[in-house]
């Protein structure tokens, strides 16, 4: 189980990386944390003549954030905040999953990323794996795409033509396929923190500790001061060819009083938004059934927290 030969490139800037990708086209592949790509290379399930290693591109690492009225401040190392808008958190694509997990800015402003991170593989994987790698790889069973989709995150993409933003809703196209073109490089992800009373919960079912999810759910809820839900975002993983939003659940929650939601019943609506694919670990039917149950449970968790939040507020 040894990889085929390739030529190795280690650019130190986004522009050099993009230049290499443009130069070699389909023969080139960016290497981020390598936790998915390297096994595929070793098993010779995929191969590229040119590997463009992003691990020397310092500007792609780190978390920065702005609050309304403040300029950008770098919370962790690199300030890649050129495109950051007011009140946004920007996470460089090469930021390790372990850094996302422990970064205080992320925990405070994008709690779902913080909650989802421990579910990614094991700590040795997260020490190397990156948030951009996860998102660009677009495995339907992985955590960050579901969170990104639920929260409407923005993918910041560099190409020879310049930098552009792709909203999450347009980013994930199908299994392992995104809106990124061959010479596009995912540079950063941006998220808008939620304001007002809100709560966040994440859980998944996996065969073993650290395995890819059979099904998982990311829930964010917001309420007005009267205790009515005014914002609901539900992302799901493992139940479609990409991460998917549980729009039916989100719609059903809108306007309900926090204390009158039957989480299990609302969770069952999630089945309508799923188009699961069966595999060796679980059938499509299983994913739909257990996935809906899980959405209900994660929702219940978020509701409990939101009730607390409203009480404290």
């Amino acid at each position, binding site marked *: 189980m040894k*990889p085929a030969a390739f030529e190795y490139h280690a650019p130190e800037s986004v522009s050099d990386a993009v230049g290499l990708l443009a130069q070699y086209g389909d023969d080139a592949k960016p290497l981020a944390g390598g936790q998915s790509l390297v096994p595929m290379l070793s098993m*010779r399930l995929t191969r590229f003549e040119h590997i463009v290693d992003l691990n020397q591109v310092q500007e792609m690492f780190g978390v920065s954030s702005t609050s309304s009225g403040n300029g950008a401040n770098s919370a962790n190392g690199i300030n890649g905040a050129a495109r950051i808008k007011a009140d946004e958190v920007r996470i460089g694509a090469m930021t390790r999953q372990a850094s996302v997990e422990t970064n205080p800015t992320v925990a405070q402003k994008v709690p779902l990323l913080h909650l989802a991170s421990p579910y990614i593989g094991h700590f040795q994987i997260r020490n190397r794996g990156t948030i951009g790698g996860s998102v660009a790889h677009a495995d339907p069973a992985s955590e960050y795409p579901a969170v990104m989709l639920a929260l409407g995150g923005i993918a910041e993409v560099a190409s020879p033509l310049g930098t552009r933003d792709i909203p999450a809703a347009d980013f994930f196209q199908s299994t392992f396929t995104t809106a990124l073109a061959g010479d596009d490089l995912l540079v950063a992800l941006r998220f808008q923190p939620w304001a007002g009373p809100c709560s966040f919960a994440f859980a998944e*079912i996996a065969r*073993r500790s650290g395995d890819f999810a059979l099904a998982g759910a990311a829930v964010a809820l917001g309420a007005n001061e009267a205790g009515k839900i005014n914002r609901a975002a539900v992302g799901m993983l493992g139940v479609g060819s990409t991460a998917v939003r549980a729009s039916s659940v989100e719609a059903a929650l809108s306007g309900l009083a926090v204390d009158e939601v039957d989480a299990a019943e609302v969770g069952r609506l999630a089945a309508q938004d799923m188009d699961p694919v069966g595999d*060796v*670990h*679980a*059938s499509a039917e299983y994913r739909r059934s*257990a996935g809906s149950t899980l959405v209900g449970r994660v929702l219940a968790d978020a509701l409990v927290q939101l009730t607390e939040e409203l009480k404290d507020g």
Partner: protein
Amino acid sequence: MSPTTAARYVGQSVKRLEDPRLVTGHGRYVDDVVLAGMLHVAFARSDLARGTITHLDTSAAAALDGVRAVFVASDLNPQVDSLRASMFPPHAPAPPPNLLADKDVRFVGDPYVMVVAESRYIAEDAIELLDVEFEPLEPVVDYETAADASALVHPELETNLPNQMQVPNPEQTEAFAGAAQVITETWYQHRQTNVPMETRGIVASWQPHAGVMEVWASTQSPHELQLMGARTLGIGEHKMVVHFGDVGGAFGQKVFLGREDRAVLVAAKLLGRPLKWIEDRRENLLAANHARIEQMTVSIAVDEDGKFLAANLDQLQDDGAYPLGGPAGLGAMSTTLFPGPYRMGPVSWQARTVHTNTCGRGAYRGPWQMESVAREQMIDRVASEIGIDPLELRRRNVLKPEDLPYQTSTGLSFETTISPDQTLDQAAEIIGYEDFRVEQAKARERGRYLGLGIALYIEPTSMGMGPLGTESAMLRVEVDGHINLFMGTGSHGQSLETTMAQLVADELGVCPEDVSLHQGHGSGYGFGTGGSRSAVIAGGAARAAASGMREKVIAIAAHLLEASAGDLEVTDGVISVKGTPSAQVTMAQVAATAYQNSDALPEGMEAGLEFTARFKTPPVTHSNACHICTCEVDPGTGKVTLLRYVVSEDCGNMINPMVVHGQVAGGVAQGIGGALYEHAVYDENGNPLASTFLDYLVPTAAEVPEIEHGNVVVPSDTPGGHKGTGEGGAIGAPPAVFNAVADALAPFGVYPNRQPLDPNAVLSLIASGAK
């Protein structure tokens, strides 16, 4: 046994002598062996379950820079007359001796070309340059229909059903006719594999002119490798040098030589260069060996009180294409062992083995354990059918001391030294059986589903038929008084360097640290380590060698001290006169006299301190155990969480309780894996769907609960009173876990009969019950 030496080390949890090198990364496994001029091997393997090779051109691969040789079937196969290992009968029908697939491929993973190159990287590059075409043929995948399939896995055998045995018993038919109730179910075990953390591997170095083959291998049976390797190469065993280093687990997979191992030996001789083949994980999961693929239909007759009256068994197992080591055909062993720790009454049985176009079957920790799986799951089913508590039903039928010795209708003889009733009671007590039933009832009222499973079994250990019957120990006290012990074992995690040293230390009056165990080259014939045999058989040999040595040491010391042998004692390598400790000589003084001043020895005594003993074991030594575990099933996700796990084991006197508990726990974890997680599944076209560790799910620390041990100690009649224990964990765990899950699901009115009980299966069962 010497009455003058107290047991100081045997029975203690002595820390392992193996550990200092292993915890610091200084073990020497086969992949750590590097020889000058060594080349690397990779195999091209079939992607088809069955097909004809219509075109094969190796020239581009051979021309690649760094490639030294490319071998096809016709280069290697003619060198081998049989793939059979020495323990299998010579006349049973066996697959053809194809080291490499010749003209056709017979399972996905079937090797058809061997590439030898300067690195494994280059060898894999060359495989991609092979110009090969196959014509796909309809494969035989489903073992239930394989016997009747028109396609033949091995046309040479003219059948897919090479092995069939039937033993009807008229008394069983009679008992069924008069029984209150006869309950029938078919139990299925699914395809699993051993998964040693170190895959298979071999380094082979041919010395031209000397005619010597020197081998380093990951093996549990260095002498089987020496014998079969020599036979493969057509050389004498004196020219086959097998070095035994650290071995990273095997669980039955490394008893026999695989086709690849033999291909490497043959190629190394042809090339005259040292070759290394290290199996990669995908090869290991695809092509090393699979196990457990079988079903047993069980009918049990009971009277009104739940007394077992008779049983009828129909066993079918899948040998795959090339069973590892030879025709496995262990189905008959499963049916024979079926009565287990119960008065089962007359038993009729049939056992059949078929070939399919899948990976060959091989030994896996308790290779016959379908007997316990089917019996223990069946007993819970019977209990449920007739409305008796499963613990109570077992108590009514279990063998008690007054029943012993006991002969089953299938011909097994159990000694008076088994204790199944005691382990059953002890495990029930530790788990708190009655309290759990109360807790379970309360939990059900709250919509939580708890379950408890029991598995009680007798493990045939240290079996002594044919090549398995003996082990040898050659003990040498060196000139400085330290001890080298040479044995035919192949310790690969069983801690024999420690346990054999403990036995020798007590017998000889030295410290375990003064004893070094050497295995492989230089040791005397033994079958190796496996079959739960080392404590009794190897231990018997080590003990006997040390005992013989002790006599001589005492005799020399008595002579040197001018004392009577009967007045001497040996402690920490010092021989002294009891009550007069100042009158003493050391082991080193005795040894120096024996080798370097032999004129000072007692008259007529042979010089030197070398003693060899060979222990012949009884036909079988039975141990027994009871597993009880509890679980909770999440009805929303189908996930099973194990809550508690208790094992009450009687393996007689323990040499090292820490090691015994480690063996039990490891087996339990494998059984948990089998019952809940692991499945080497194929699709209907014979494509393996679990060929990586992402799909073949070995349990992690998060899935295995704390294991609570109870010990009943009834010494066996073998020297030291030991019984084997290596396989038991993996025998008892699958049915215990299965029964616990089935118990948790009982409120849904469903009766599982297949493993693995993964979340998908559990949710499907619940859904089928709700309908």
